[in-house]
């Protein structure tokens, strides 16, 4: 058994730095490369792509990432765990296979494909069997939006990934698995942690939480002493050096920018945190109030002390549904009295919409430069050099939202003075795909692991 296992993060979301996976495997020794592609609404985008073309529906960036790390996988035995499968893990595996053939790596590694998270085809049957799939925030049953559902996927835990690694997979492709399981599963596989090794499993989850957003724990987006963080143009993505007892060090490769410190890791730990006593995952509930951080040299933070407890009997389900249309238009007003001019423009615009008989679920005005992010807390901004009027509408009727987008431009000639910033043209109408979080009994979800040569 290895004494230390290194798991490196190479992608914090779909759209992250394309070159980071390669830099992670080439910058120093790592055992696993962990790639997280799926944000809450990503699944619905992928579902739309799959509807148009049944061979799509996965994170296509992953194919390029695999191509760039194939030498490390084939020659040095680096393993890859990614949730790039989206709503079509088999198609993702086929695309990786095709790239391997082109690169002469055919037959030199095995791909493990995890499925079973996709509940879309079973929804009616599940609802009929009494699974309400109620919205965790509002309590409403899924039946209220059933006809508008685009995708429905259970968040899977570490089990199927551990199974795939146990069957000799060098690359594991999952659909909707929890972000943290992508890091915890390799550690569980390597160290043989049992299904009830609560503290070790919780430690693996915390390791996953720290590195799942890529460089956001290694100097990116860090408020603490931000001016002093070096060379963010060459920011080092994080990796963990974990031990069997559940302790681990967070660090990054030498000769990279950014910083790993108690402060950068602390900021990431509190990111998207709920009740810190119970960070709930399918495998374990981790207690974030037990985490101990200590400096372990330059750009090294030792993490220890983590406690876990048994999980619930539910899995979270990520459901995406069509929820109407929205558009946001902007104009910029200049000093003197920039804010007052923007406020008058807002009043005129609202009156225009009223006269046109356009009704919306929601209209929101922000004055960027005065109150958009801090509201009234920003204080008196009447003397601002410029203010952007940012006016958004949302509603079920596409035509009404479309009509609204034609009301911004006329204000340039018909409204308050000192106005500019309309070069971008009419605002775009966007269809809203909203997120519906729900819970389902674990026993309902059956996972499957296939090994592809």
């Amino acid at each position, binding site marked *: 058994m290895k004494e230390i296992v290194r798991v490196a993060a190479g992608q914090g979301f779909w759209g992250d730095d394309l070159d980071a996976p390669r830099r992670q495997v080439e910058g120093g020794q790592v055992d696993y490369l962990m790639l997280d592609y799926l944000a809450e*609404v990503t699944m619905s985008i992928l579902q739309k792509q799959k509807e148009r073309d049944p061979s799509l529906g996965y994170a296509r960036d992953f194919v390029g990432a695999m191509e760039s790390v194939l030498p490390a996988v084939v020659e040095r035995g680096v393993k890859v765990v990614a949730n790039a499968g989206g709503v079509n893990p088999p198609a993702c595996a086929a695309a990786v296979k095709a790239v391997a053939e082109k690169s002469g790596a055919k037959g030199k590694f095995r791909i493990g494909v995890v499925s079973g998270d996709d509940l879309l085809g079973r929804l009616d049957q599940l609802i009929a069997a009494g699974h309400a799939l109620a919205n965790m925030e509002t309590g409403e049953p899924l039946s209220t939006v059933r006809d508008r559902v685009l995708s429905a996927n259970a968040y899977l835990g570490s089990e199927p990934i551990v199974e795939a690694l146990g069957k000799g997979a060098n690359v594991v492709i999952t659909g909707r698995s929890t972000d943290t399981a992508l890091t915890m599963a390799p550690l569980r596989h390597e160290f043989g942690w049992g299904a009830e090794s609560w503290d070790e499993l919780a430690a693996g989850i915390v390791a996953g939480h720290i590195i799942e957003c890529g460089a956001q724990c290694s100097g990116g987006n860090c408020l603490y002493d931000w001016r002093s963080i070096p060379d963010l143009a060459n920011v080092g993505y994080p990796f963990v050096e974990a031990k069997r007892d559940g302790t681990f060090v967070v660090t990054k490769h030498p000769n990279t920018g950014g910083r790993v410190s108690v402060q950068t890791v602390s*900021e990431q730990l509190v990111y*998207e*945190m709920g009740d*810190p006593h119970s960070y709930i995952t399918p495998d374990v509930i981790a207690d974030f*109030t037990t985490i101990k951080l200590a400096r372990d040299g330059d750009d090294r933070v030792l993490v220890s002390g983590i406690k876990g407890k048994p999980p619930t009997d539910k899995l979270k389900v990520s459901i995406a549904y069509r929820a109407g249309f929205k558009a946001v238009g902007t104009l910029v007003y200049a000093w003197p009295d920039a804010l007052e001019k923007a406020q008058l423009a807002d009043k005129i615009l609202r009156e225009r919409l009223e006269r046109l008989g356009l009704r919306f679920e929601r209209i*929101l005005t922000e004055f960027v430069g005065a109150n958009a992010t801090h509201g009234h807390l920003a204080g008196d901004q009447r003397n601002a050099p410029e203010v952007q009027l940012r006016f958004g509408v949302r509603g079920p009727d596409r035509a009404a939202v479309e009509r609204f987008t034609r009301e911004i431009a006329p204000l340039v000639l018909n409204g308050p003075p000192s106005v500019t910033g309309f070069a971008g043209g009419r605002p775009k109408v966007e269809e*809203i795909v909203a997120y519906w979080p729900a819970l389902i009994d674990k026993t309902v979800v059956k996972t499957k692991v296939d090994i592809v040569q």
Partner: protein
Amino acid sequence: MKVRLVDIAHARSGDKGDTANVGVIALQARWYSVLKEFVTQKGVADHFRGMIDGKVDRFELPNLNALNFLLHGALDGGGTLSLKTDAQGKVYSTALLRMVIDVPDTEARRLELPAAK
């Protein structure tokens, strides 16, 4: 003595649906006691009055010298429904750092807290 949080803490925020979370971390370990005692659930709810529709939850993480706040109904529906610039609550953290707390002078001097400007 009046103390502004931005001078004694750093922070990061994120979202979960229509709820923003703000984790606020003491810049020096010895200042955590000030956060714990004076940055109360009620104080934060008052600070954000008019900006959020729901309640405020408060949690303590003495191990990280940090507090975590959940601001419910903070994101105009959240996610893709929201029309806000900060639909995912990424910078709510900085709005909390504007908060001013009142610390007894003796304690403020003992801990060498910077006074609000």
